[in-house]
């Protein structure tokens, strides 16, 4: 771990993929949100791993998500994580994908306020560079007609 001074602007933390998550991050680099799907349990697995946590089947199929979801919950941090000094206050969100899984993410292109960030508002995935990878984030999306 490198020592950093309090005044220097730090890089935002970047994930280090593992063999089990490499496809998730490689897909993100192509602009796709992909997750393993368990055909036995008929559910997606988040975070990606080698076996389904419900039935332990290793017959998982990497599947591209629609990228559509809804804002399930969030908080707005007024304290800066290392690298987020110029971002405060910033929202940390839980997005529920229309396929079911929920994941933590950021919501871009909208004020980071309780007034703007309304629970269950529709979102679409986007990607932004972070270190050596592309990071899935979300933006307000069109209201889909499936409710």
């Amino acid at each position, binding site marked *: 771990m490198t020592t950093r001074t309090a005044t220097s602007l730090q890089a935002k*933390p970047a994930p280090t993929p*593992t063999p089990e998550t490499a496809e998730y991050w490689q897909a993100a680099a192509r602009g796709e949100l992909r997750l393993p799907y368990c055909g036995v349990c008929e559910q997606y697995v988040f975070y990606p791993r080698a076996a389904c946590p419900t039935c332990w089947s290793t017959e998982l199929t990497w599947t591209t998500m629609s990228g559509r979801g809804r804002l399930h919950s969030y*908080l707005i941090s007024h*304290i800066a994580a290392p690298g987020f000094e110029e971002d405060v206050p910033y929202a*940390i969100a839980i997005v529920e994908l229309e396929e079911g899984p929920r994941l*933590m993410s950021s919501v871009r292109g909208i004020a980071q306020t309780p007034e703007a960030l309304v629970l269950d508002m529709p979102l679409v995935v986007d990607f932004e560079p972070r270190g050596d990878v592309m990071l899935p984030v979300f933006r307000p999306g069109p209201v889909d007609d499936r409710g």
Partner: protein
Amino acid sequence: MARPAGGAIVGAAETTKLGVIKDQSALELHAEAARLAVADAGLTLNDIDGLATAGLPVITVSHHLGMRPRYLDGTYIGGGSFLLHLRHAVAAIQSGLCETVLITHGASNRSRIGRPPRITDPASPPGQFEQPYGAFTPPTLFPIGVLRYMKKYGLTHEQLASVAVAQRMWASKVPRAMFRDPITVDDVLASRMVAYPMHLLECCLVTDGGGAVVVTSADRAGAGSFPKPPVFVLGAGEACETSMVSTMRDLTTSRAFVDASTAAFAEARLGPPDVNHLMVYDAFAHLPVYALEDCGFVERGQAGAFIADGHTRPGGTLPMNTNGGGLSYTHTGLYGIFLLLEAVRQVRGEAAAQVPNVNVSMVQGVGGMFEAAGTVILGSHDAYTG
């Protein structure tokens, strides 16, 4: 109905100082609490043959205290670790692995003297799927489900703030509490925003301190050879759900709270109406809300109103967090030992804000950020034999 042979706490102590401690390391806070707890039990170092701890390695604490234990437990789930240590110690004593277990805690979380660093590996699940989004400390993670809870059940900001108000009422009666001045809901809502919807007064303190308990068999405790009234372990449970709060199955309920408390009530053959006094790990104001529902004290969605209506305050029907809690008393990072110590004081009848006739006290601890849980139900000799 006679209970199975169990365990009891026969010694309990906090460090002499609590809050901001500039002249003791984390390790020495473990050690001072250990010495005071063993003395409280009327015992000496040579009487202790088991050691359990968290925060620092069990070997480090053993060596520092000059011990040669034949039972070691370094179980770590976060702040509630000590509740698991107590459960494991009772089982170990029952099965003959040892006779008397010391459980220690010490932390220099505020002054950071001899405090291990906190690092999240960028290849770990939280390192890949939480930390890149600016989530890095408990305030940026633990309350992530509160807005969903508020939308689902109609919990108001004022009700959430009332958790801090109720606990400050208790703290005002406790000389060792760090914050004792009464506060109002308006004061809470006017305090600095830390992580919306959590204001500063809805977040726990950051302090230095330590605590320890001494556990032995219920038979030996009941024989009456200890200076203080023994506090019996009536039941206990432990559980875990997730390594990341963002992947809880349901952001409005802790499965670990449900599982651990269900196991504890079953072992104790008791239910929520039997509990006279409740200690809930309150790193943030929403934890007591979740715990009251997940442990079955109130129906789903009712905890906010229950607290706002005063039921957990002094004179209420369910006195809760009577030391002032992590919000007002102290919070050393691994706060769980202080839950146990206040429950012990209440059952002994020696608490600063004593509740009349506490026969059954329940302690609900969390591990990490809704990652795990430990529950312990403690009781007086009457509750144990009754």
